């Protein structure tokens, strides 16, 4: 099972200098997402953050940042299922740094609120949910 992980890791092109067209960015993100999901499936949790950072540091254009949130959601769901709540929080924090749109930030804050609730920290859960609502209002979305 580790062989595909190693092959994908070897083939993944790390972000570099200069402009890069969207298709290349997308393909890199696609590969990295596969790597992350494989790591989680194989319970190699200590390597997850390093790989997710590669996705979130790629400066996605604003119109595609929704994919970052969907990817973060998929990854955090998988981590929650594996009881890795703290790690899921860190992945979401990475995503929060990467998205600039208020509506997207609101979605991430809601997931963080959910996570804190699951971790038993009601106060932080409420704080993040309130932040999410404020961001929604700011973005003008319902």
């Amino acid at each position: 099972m580790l062989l595909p992980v190693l092959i994908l890791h070897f083939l993944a092109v790390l972000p570099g200098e200069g402009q890069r067209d969207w298709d290349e960015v997308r393909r890199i993100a696609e590969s990295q997402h596969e790597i992350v999901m494989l790591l989680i499936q194989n319970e190699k949790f200590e390597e997850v953050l390093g790989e997710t950072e590669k996705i979130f540091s790629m400066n996605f254009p604003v119109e595609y940042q929704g994919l970052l949130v969907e990817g973060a959601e998929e990854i955090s769901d998988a981590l929650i299922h594996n009881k890795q709540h703290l790690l899921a929080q860190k992945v979401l924090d990475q995503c929060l740094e990467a998205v600039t749109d208020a509506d997207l930030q609101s979605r991430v804050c809601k997931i963080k609120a959910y996570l804190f609730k699951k971790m038993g920290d009601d106060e932080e859960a409420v704080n993040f949910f309130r932040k999410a609502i404020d961001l929604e209002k700011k973005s003008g979305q319902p």
Partner: protein
Amino acid sequence: MECRTCCEALTAFLDGELSGLERRAVEEHLAACSACQENCESLRYSEHLVGAALDEMLAPPSWGRIVPRLEPRPSWLDLRRLFGWAWQPVFLTVVVLAVLLVPGFLENGGGVEDAELEMMLSQYVRERDEMENLHYGIINTEPVGWVYYNPYADHSSSERRNPYSGE
């Protein structure tokens, strides 16, 4: 094509939303796999039952109730027509009042009340729990586990490779 890939694609297959290549891959797999064929037929029949049960039964409100309310917002020109030479001071007064009053309103909690926030958060947590159970419930009931989607995969090309096919 593996069973898990086929299962995840079945709904899109039944809806005619797969590319030609993907559709043929699913058809070939279904011809060879009785478990997936059964899964497909049960989804198809369930869709038939749902389609028959759901219908656009509710009649809409009559047009007569809408007409009196169809007033476009006043345009900039209309404001000038309405207030004549006085529109500028009126507009400026409104702006000044808004600047003075809104911060005070916000400070006093113009946002969501705590109780309402708690209720919304509880509802959100419940819905996410259900989605989690749904997703991982599917993993447990369908032939092979670990089903997920890759949001970065390219879905724009009509004859693209299925990202889960392993082809």
